[in-house]
């Protein structure tokens, strides 16, 4: 068999193998307790003119567990431990209220940027987002109050499960928890 024929033959067998393996993987995923939905669930987060699809990286079990919502409560303060627990369980949306440049230089992984100083008050905040979503706002740390301000605003427009992480970026960074740089994908 010549080289191109050999490569074509390997390609055909690879396609067949990938097809069979994918079916086996999907079946395993369906039976596994850590299985995930085949199509990634996402929330649409709109800030100003920017619309971002915000994926939810939860297992099927986590989606079921965290979909049970609490009744309305006023914004509450949470500490680093609880904030990180929500981060690990993908059970809250983190909102970074600092300026865009500070956000780009480093932020909590998966956090959405809503700089409070640039917020357009004539528009609805996060219009596509369900008012039942759990939201955690943060800013630099104990010296800033934007996280509290945003938490109160969100609560006033109907979000019923809002928290502010007062330790903010400073505590998160100090703890060595996951961070990212740059804009949201």
């Amino acid at each position: 068999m010549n080289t191109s024929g050999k490569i074509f033959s390997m390609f055909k067998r690879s396609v067949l193998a990938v097809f069979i393996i994918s079916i086996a993987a999907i079946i395993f995923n369906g039976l596994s307790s850590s299985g995930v939905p085949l199509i990634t669930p996402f929330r649409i987060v709109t800030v100003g003119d920017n619309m971002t699809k915000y994926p939810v990286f939860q297992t099927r079990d986590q989606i079921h567990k965290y979909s049970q919502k609490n009744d309305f409560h006023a914004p509450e303060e949470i500490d680093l431990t609880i904030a990180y627990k929500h981060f690990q369980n993908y059970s809250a949306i983190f909102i970074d209220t600092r300026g865009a440049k500070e956000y780009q230089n480093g932020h909590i992984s998966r956090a959405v940027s809503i700089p409070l100083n640039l917020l357009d008050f004539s528009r609805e905040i996060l219009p596509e987002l369900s008012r039942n979503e759990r939201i955690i706002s943060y800013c630099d740390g104990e010296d800033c109050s934007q996280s509290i301000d945003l938490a109160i605003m969100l609560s006033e427009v109907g979000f019923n499960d809002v928290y502010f992480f007062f330790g903010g970026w400073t505590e998160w960074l100090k703890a060595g928890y996951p961070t990212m740089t740059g804009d949201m994908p």
Partner: protein
Amino acid sequence: MVESRLPDNDRRYAMKRIDSHFYLKIAIRLVLGFLFLYASLDKILYPSKFAEVIYNYRLLPVELLNICAITVPWIEAFIGISLLMGFWIETSAFMLSGITVFFIVMIISAIVRGLDIECGCFSLDAEGSLVSWKRVIEDVFILAGGLYLMVNHKKPDKQG
């Protein structure tokens, strides 16, 4: 018979070459097989975490993240098992080379865009493996191994 026409010295030299290739191929197969099988385990056990690693590369549509996180680790596991057990070697080496080229492109694109993200190469431990040129070099060696197996595998795979 070709062998009978070769002088004794040449024949011994040819046999030595065959032997050295034989052992080298086995060594490469075992190393790559183990690496790919090991790399797949964490990802198979925690697909949601692997989906997030893929998301951070910012190359795929959000909707496709989970399906990739479900299937890619199993392809890696298949390549690993096949190389360790010695079946479909040629095809596995072809798949390994293809998937490794894909990984190299993804890592380089992340480095070029200045993304400081977890590689997701061998484990899902965020501390252990950020994208870097070191990861690219590792993958180039893996690719070289895959191509070597593909080119030097004399016995064609049985049709499946």
